[in-house]
């Protein structure tokens, strides 16, 4: 693995401004630091309400942080000034969100071509690439369907390849398979690993599912709940290529699952849980 981390987060903090009648303000993320190596599949796991989405929004440059530093390819990118935010860092950081966020008035193909269109990179070569991604994602025959005519799993695939098509070096993924049934989910995880193994992009994948975090990641970060800090870090020894459906029985999977679960076990009852995201 390359020595230089592609993405580095140092002492990142974020708090929302207080509202009348509430606490003056609450920290969502406090002093969070980690680094992501080039080509690494990093999974981040944390209980719901642990500011995972906020963290990705900050990394994608669509939300400001209150303090700290983010470095992309060793260059500092400002994160605390809303005016200087550059969403997606000039197409260097792709973002696949929880909801598919496909444009409802564009067909599958038009949605996949959309980033190329706005980046002025629409030519026969990129079109061919889009077509081959559509084929690989099993969406052949649905190119001219509108999003509302696709199933949830298909929309997810379309949303994923819409980001893959313009080849950003880093892709952020926010519980992309959260709302799917177990079958579709396993299928999409397999597809994602297959597509990833072709290009070896850097992926930061956020989830609240321990099994998913282990099955997909090279390394897993565990976050604590509000405020979010780094609670633990686990390197995943399970070799690739992995068999997603059979991984549950892998002895190393079980061991890792146990350790992370103990780590995530909530503190004794009594403190009310507050969901933020």
């Amino acid at each position: 693995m390359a020595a230089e981390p592609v993405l580095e987060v140092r002492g990142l903090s974020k708090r929302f401004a207080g509202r009348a009648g509430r606490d003056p303000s609450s920290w969502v993320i406090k002093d969070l630091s980690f680094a992501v190596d080039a080509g690494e599949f990093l999974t981040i796991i944390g209980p719901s309400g642990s500011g995972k989405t906020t963290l990705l929004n900050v990394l994608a440059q669509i939300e400001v942080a209150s303090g700290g530093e983010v470095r992309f390819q060793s260059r500092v990118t400002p994160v605390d000034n809303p005016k200087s935010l550059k969403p997606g860092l000039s197409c260097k950081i792709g973002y696949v969100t929880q909801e598919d966020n496909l444009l409802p008035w564009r067909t599958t193909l038009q949605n996949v071509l959309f980033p190329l269109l706005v980046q002025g990179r629409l030519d026969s070569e990129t079109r061919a690439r889009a077509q081959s991604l559509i084929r690989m994602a099993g969406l052949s025959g649905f190119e001219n369907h509108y999003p509302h005519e696709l199933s949830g799993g298909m929309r997810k695939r379309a949303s994923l390849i819409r980001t893959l098509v313009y080849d950003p070096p880093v892709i952020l993924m926010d519980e992309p398979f959260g709302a799917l049934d177990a079958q579709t989910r396993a299928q999409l995880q397999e597809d994602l690993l297959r597509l990833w193994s072709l290009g070896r992009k850097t992926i930061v994948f956020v989830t609240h599912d321990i099994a998913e975090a282990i099955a997909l990641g090279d390394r897993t970060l565990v976050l604590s709940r509000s405020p979010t800090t780094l609670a633990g870090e686990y390197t995943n020894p399970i070799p690739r290529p992995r068999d997603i459906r059979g991984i549950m029985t892998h002895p190393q999977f079980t061991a890792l699952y146990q350790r992370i679960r103990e780590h995530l076990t909530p503190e004794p009852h009594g403190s009310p849980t507050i969901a933020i995201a």
Partner: protein
Amino acid sequence: MVLLLAIWQGLSLAFGTYWFGSPWGVATRLASGVASGEIVRHASYTLLEATAGFLIGALPAVALPFALRRLPILTAILDPFMMGGYGAPKLALAPLFILWFGIGTQSKIALVAITVFFIVYFSAQAGVRTLDARLVQMAQVMGANERDVARHIVLPGAVPYIFTGFRIAMPYSIGGAVIAELISANRGLGYLIQLGAMNFDTTAVFVALTATTCIVFLGNRTLDVLERRLLSWRPRPNLDIEAGS
């Protein structure tokens, strides 16, 4: 429909054709009027005024909310005036327009345009305001600039709202033209109504009203066709159940 005609015929028999032109009488007069080209000539003036007024009113009404999208202060200043304009009775402006534009076609077009403008403006504004912020953010992450966002996200998202505005404004545009003709004109369906009324020719009034309704119907069909083309991406309500297939 048959029941409606029966009631109408019944009313005209009960009260006499002086009060209610009979449907048969209206139909024959309408047919002869169409055949002689008389009705068609007057209707085409009304249609021309309504169409021209609609276009002149609707285009800036659609464009303005887009131009104001990034100017919240100017929007806040304009809003009360727009609301006032929306609420003001347009008919009361007719004497002014006659004064400014004369009794010819222009004053009718102006009245239609101003009526249509305010209706479409508020629909288009609603469409621009219901913009999905998340879609915009995602597009920006993918490299879309301000112009791309306006063209590929704000505009298509607002089209259903703009169409709703068109649908509401369309009958108003034809009604506006007819009413403007009622006030002062020497041609058009409104003139025919006025002429019929002055001659106590109730059937002529009904003939002109029927022709007006036909134009509204035609306008609605045109919008249907346009909408099916422009909004094909929207989920269509499932009509199979109703059809009982």
